[in-house]
């Protein structure tokens, strides 16, 4: 899995956000470690909705790259993010589930949580353009 995910985690922006992953067999959890620079509104305080959205897009890409070998990074076509709870200033976790993978387009759902996986802070669903290897 590490080899397949390497191009994604070599991306300058992904590195800048500090996103990591934890893989167990075919289960992949992405982690957005808390940093002061992720805060959107310091008065609440809450993480920036854009950072959460970006993190979930990265998680979707990671899920697609872990599932099959791709010739290029997945490209988002459209995504919809629902913000369910304020994201507190602490680590965020996310997992992706591929609803349908076609030869060119994949439909992916992502859930992000903090304290309890059963209490997601945000969900994403979207379509991604994929280019299978070979």
């Amino acid at each position: 899995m590490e080899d397949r995910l390497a191009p994604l985690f070599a991306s300058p922006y992904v590195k800048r956000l500090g996103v990591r992953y934890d893989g167990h067999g075919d289960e992949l959890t992405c982690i957005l470690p808390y940093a002061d620079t992720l805060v959107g509104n310091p008065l609440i305080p809450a993480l920036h909705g854009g950072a959460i959205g970006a993190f979930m897009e990265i998680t979707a890409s990671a899920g697609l790259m872990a599932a099959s070998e791709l010739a290029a990074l997945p490209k988002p076509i459209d995504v919809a993010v629902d913000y369910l709870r304020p994201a507190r200033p602490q680590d965020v976790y996310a997992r992706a589930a591929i609803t349908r993978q076609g030869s060119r387009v994949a439909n992916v759902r992502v859930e992000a949580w903090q304290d309890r996986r059963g209490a997601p802070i945000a969900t994403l669903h979207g379509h991604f353009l994929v280019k299978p290897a070979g």
Partner: protein
Amino acid sequence: MSEDLQARLDQLAPLLVEGSPHAVDLGFKLEAIRPGEAVVRAPYREDLIGDPETGVMHGGVVTALLDHASGTAGFAGLGGTQALATLDLRLDYMRPATPGRDVIAEARTIKVSGLIAFVEAVAHDGDRDDPVATAHAAFMVNKVSQDAAEKVRANVEAGIERGETPISRLPDSSRGTS
């Protein structure tokens, strides 16, 4: 009323991007703020590249930019007194941003209904008719946000007392281009 709102937005303008650590980290700049409208720029930077092979800015930066511009427009649409929570954000990515160019998000509140603001936004890299991405979002005032807004107001008043200059207004010619 509208004049009062514009005056308040001008006063708050320095905080609308610079008050958000993540927006500062990504180098966002507030270009314009009017009742219900906001324009925010994301600089092209090497550390914001998604794919080193193409040099294209990461989609996540465009996501954060559209979220920030939309939220700022919604804030300005709901009267400029209350911080907002994002309910949802829907994005269409139409083409990769051109490597080397800044991306500009122009957001406009379509409708305010009670505590909810509906906002649409376009991100482009120079030509508004050739968008990089578009967004639709819904924002809501909530209790936590209201408490935060009180603190913002206090900070702004302190800033005005210190003689900080509000950002210049959006020129009239850039209105109603959507």
